[in-house]
């Protein structure tokens, strides 16, 4: 079945529900004390993983839509991309509010003292720029610069898993999986670039 324009609202609704569900689940888990008495680290980790997963999805939409000849899927990229930004925002908000407890001075020293936070902050700045310029009108106005700017997502795809890998104490298997996945997804893109 080829998806057509009339499927788009449904498709988007499904994507919204899939993206929002983990947040509902997190609230349920935390409010019902399913994740320990002090879930600060859990919430920070969970929202960070959410950002990585949505990032993987947004990078996979283009190859998947090409392979299955479902061009309509490409119209969901902005939606998913904004969820990457939303999860990253929640991740940072959780860090600032729950771990640093709004000690802003600490935030600035920490960003520069902890290189892995600097890497994450850089990725977030790029994501914020992409989110701000995601409006159609702005996209038209920016012309080819829009695409140049939005290629920044590939930088995020490298920075985000590095940030994760660098932040852990010893449990490197999970971050290694994300590093591998992102490299695999980026390799797909490299191939595409070469062929065109």
């Amino acid at each position, binding site marked *: 079945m080829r998806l057509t324009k009339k499927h788009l609202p449904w498709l988007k609704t499904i994507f919204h529900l899939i993206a929002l569900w*983990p947040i509902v689940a997190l609230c349920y888990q935390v409010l019902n004390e399913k994740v320990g008495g002090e879930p*600060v680290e859990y919430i920070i980790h969970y929202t960070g993983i959410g950002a990585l997963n949505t990032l993987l999805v947004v990078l996979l939409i283009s190859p998947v839509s090409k392979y299955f000849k479902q061009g309509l899927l490409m119209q969901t990229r902005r939606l998913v991309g904004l969820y990457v930004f939303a999860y990253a925002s929640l991740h940072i908000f959780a860090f600032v509010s729950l771990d640093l407890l709004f000690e802003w001075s600490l935030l600035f020293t920490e960003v520069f003292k902890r290189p892995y936070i600097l890497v994450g902050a850089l990725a977030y700045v790029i994501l914020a720029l992409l989110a701000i310029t995601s409006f159609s009108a702005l996209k038209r106005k920016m012309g080819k610069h829009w695409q140049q700017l939005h290629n920044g997502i590939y930088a995020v795809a490298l920075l985000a898993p590095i940030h994760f890998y660098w932040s852990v104490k010893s449990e490197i298997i999970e971050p290694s999986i994300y590093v591998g996945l992102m490299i695999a997804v980026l390799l*797909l893109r490299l191939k595409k670039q070469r062929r065109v």
Partner: protein
Amino acid sequence: MTNKFIKGIARKATWQIKDNEVTPHEVFVQRRNIIKALGLGALGASLPSTAQAGIFDLFNDKKTVTPFVTKPLEFSVNPSFTLDEASTPYKKVTSHNNFYEFGTSKQDPVNNAQAFNVQPWQLVIDGLVDRPLTLDYDDLLKMFALEERTYRLRCVEAWSMVIPWTGFSLATILSKAGIKSSATHVAFETLYDPQQMPGQKSRRLGGGIHYPYVEGLTIGEAMNELSFMSVGVYGKTLPPQNGAPIRLVVPWKYGFKSIKSVVRITLTDRQPPTSWNQLASNEYGFYANVNPAVDHPRWSQASERRIGEGGLFSAKRIATLPFNGYGEQVASLYKDLNLTKFF
């Protein structure tokens, strides 16, 4: 895909794909093989339980497990070791733990350790001692008069708690064995039992630590009045996630020095290996004294998040004190030591 905008020519919608941009099937299959070769097919099976619970799972309530049974202890309160600071509630002390033998997430130990069997137990004190000792479970609770001491606990991850421990001083048990004059250090070892400790069986759960977990102190540190062997918390025997049936508590050092579920204490004449130091010697030293002036290479140690009563936002950020506020008792141990070099 370079979609240049040329005037007068209808621009393609972003979702319109030229035939030559569609991945040929052979190429796609190749890619699949690359992904498989990377071992990513096993992704679902290899993700930590937290990540699985995190983003893919729905409201999956964990199977309700029968909690480990703790017993009330008889003890006296040691008035020299009380604090004005509010104690961290029992629920948080027993559900926010680092005990990688039961998993690396904070909630893993309470979830995975409830079936842990502490009876029978053997604690061996050997090495450079006059009378090697073997204590069984009952000995741990009955051989020495138990006292309660409320200590601060400062984790190397920059969070802290205030906890009333029940137990006896390390010096008491070492003196019973009789320390030979040639002994310079004390080595500690956690139980090695992969059947009971899933983190020892699986590298994924256990965070890549080389098991059994080992720790160590100098003789001076071990004989300091602060060094404490705990068999209980909040007046009851320790639950497994807190290190049942017996653990070390050295409150002026980062939490990872306070080794849990101890089966062996060996007096030696050299500095023993310690687990976190073995894993990353540039980040975790042998001494691991709480020190706000020496940052962890990847984060600041100047302040800490004190976990107290109340909800998520009720924690406080407080300044970290040298030796976690126990400088009066222990600073003299290090008067000739460069604490920046020997962190």
